[in-house]
């Protein structure tokens, strides 16, 4: 019984549920924030402190804040979408299919843990130097390409949002 896991796992699931179930966008964003934090906690547990930090810093700190800004920008506080639900049947079907997906993936990956070659964690697993080694050796090219990606996002974002450049 791993209480740490269960606490944060259930927290993330509940927060996730809240994220997709909250009526308003802002509470939904708060829910997502909770998910992020719960996951960050789990990352810590999984010997990934760096990821946990990034999770909080980048995801919660940057990405989500961006989303929140946009929510503020586009929606009046407390604004709700019309109550009448358009396209209900498809959405119901979507929800049902999502549930099926969870079930199927869970069923499908049931035996995975027996196959995966479990290894004992080496010394210093997850510490930044090890991370950096890998990052700048094996994943150098990925890094370069990601930089291009960010450049594209930059250009695109600027083009789209600025009225006059």
């Amino acid at each position: 019984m791993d209480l740490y896991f269960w606490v944060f796992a259930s927290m993330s699931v509940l927060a996730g549920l809240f994220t997709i179930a909250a009526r308003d966008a802002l509470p939904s964003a708060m829910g997502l924030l909770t998910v992020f934090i719960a996951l960050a906690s789990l990352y810590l547990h999984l010997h990934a402190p760096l990821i946990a930090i990034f999770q909080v810093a980048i995801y919660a700190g940057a990405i989500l804040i961006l989303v929140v800004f946009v929510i503020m920008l586009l929606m009046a506080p407390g604004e709700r979408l019309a109550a009448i639900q358009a396209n209900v049947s498809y959405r119901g079907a979507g929800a049902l299919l999502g549930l099926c997906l969870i079930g199927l993936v869970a069923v499908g990956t049931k035996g995975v843990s027996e196959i995966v070659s479990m290894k004992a964690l080496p010394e210093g697993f997850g510490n930044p130097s090890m991370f950096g080694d890998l990052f700048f050796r094996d994943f150098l090219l990925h890094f370069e390409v990601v930089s291009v990606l960010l450049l594209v996002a930059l250009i695109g974002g600027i083009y789209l949002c600025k009225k006059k450049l």
Partner: protein
Amino acid sequence: MSDLGFSFSLSQLWQVAGGQIILLIAGLVLIFVDLWLSTDEKPDHVATMGWLTALSFLVALKYMICTGWTLNEIVLVDVFSTEKFAIFVSAIVLMAGIFASLMSIGYLRNNKLVRSEYFILLLFAVYGTIAMVQSVDLLMMFIALEVMSLSVYVLAAFLKDDRKSQEGALKYFLLGSFGSAFFLFGVALMYGLTGTVNITKIAQVLSTGPLLENPGVLVAIAMLMSGLFFKMALVPFHMWTPDVYEGSPAIITGFMATAVKAGAFGIFIKLLYVTFTPILAHSGQPEFQSTVNLAALAVYWKPLLWWLALITMFVGNLVAVSQQNVKRMLAYSSIAHAGYMVLGIIAANDEGRMGVLFYLFAYTLMNFGAFGVLYLLDGQEGKAQTLDDYKGLGFKYPALSFLMALFLVSMAGLPPTAGFIGKFYVFAAAIKEGYLLLAALGIMTCVIGAYYYLRVIWMLYMVEPSREVVAGRVSVTSMIALIAAALGIMYLGILPEGLAQVANVAQQSLAMVF
């Protein structure tokens, strides 16, 4: 190994990713050129940017072909490879890029858009596609896919004053992200199962271990595939296509329909065959001998693709029939074409892969041609895109209409055009493997296809005009591109062997990706 600890030398990098590097450098240069030029915005500058983009594509193309194609061995830098297959697909993408940039000069002018970010994004889109096709690493695939996608999202939204463009782009973005999340989940699962993201290593691990019997692998495969099916626009992952194609700027639609699709098909074929079929066993390398076991997976993916191909051909063609908007109709048609190409993939033989490559090439020519004419007849985006608008234009704009007719005839798969040969190749491949029923059903959907393609032609030639339509200014660059496409279609329709040989060599190189 250099002292930095890289697993590759710079010269190797230059060999394998030279084309990408050229494009990257060109992209950066263009940004500065743009900044320098945009102090006073004039259409000429945009044209200059267009020419420069086309030029950089050309240089990259030249480089990739001259360097990559002449290499006897596949050069890998762990994440990228320069097998001839990737070069072939990249060449298609670059060709589409050249078409796009040449036509865009006229397009932007006709739409009074004096924005040169367009070309930079186009360049990065092409870059992303090539990077994706060259990658042999699932993570790199994902990242490159995102580079390509993000560029195209922005390009799709490029008509800022046009609500349709924005709406299409948002749908594209949302669904695209949704799809790439699938892909990512698949990557994660695959990583977990095999401990690697390199596709050849995955193949090795899958074939040696007890993994093949584990349904988790199948979950991963399904996730990966569905992410790619989205980009390939196979039914039922196709739903974004018509909306996005209709909304986006015509040239970008053309680009999406050709380059992006070529990239998606390229990467799908590479992933599918290298990782999930025994193709590597053909290489004769002892360490890949075990991959013959992967043949067991055919039980899963072949029937799947069988149904997908059928449904895709059927739905694409059928729904296209009731479209009034030509652009949207072409979107459905591109779905149908994807279905035909899948036919070649199912065949899982040399002819099939060769056929798909040939088909992609031909399809790029004819589709870009069609979108080129479409934008020219349009004047300004959305002005004259419906069948009604096309009525009687045949004798008013004979050259454009003739080209349109030619491209559509080719799409309908009638000889002597490249479209026919392409269809012939993929159908022949499928039939060779005994998929007679699928081929027969598929070819029946071609009849439906012929109907709506010809409907455009008959609107052009056989009906009296219902309203005055003024085509846009026909720019020289567009005309050059169109004529080149038309000649290409005719040439390939009559003498396909040369390209087919090349495509065959290209597909054979898939066995050497390790």
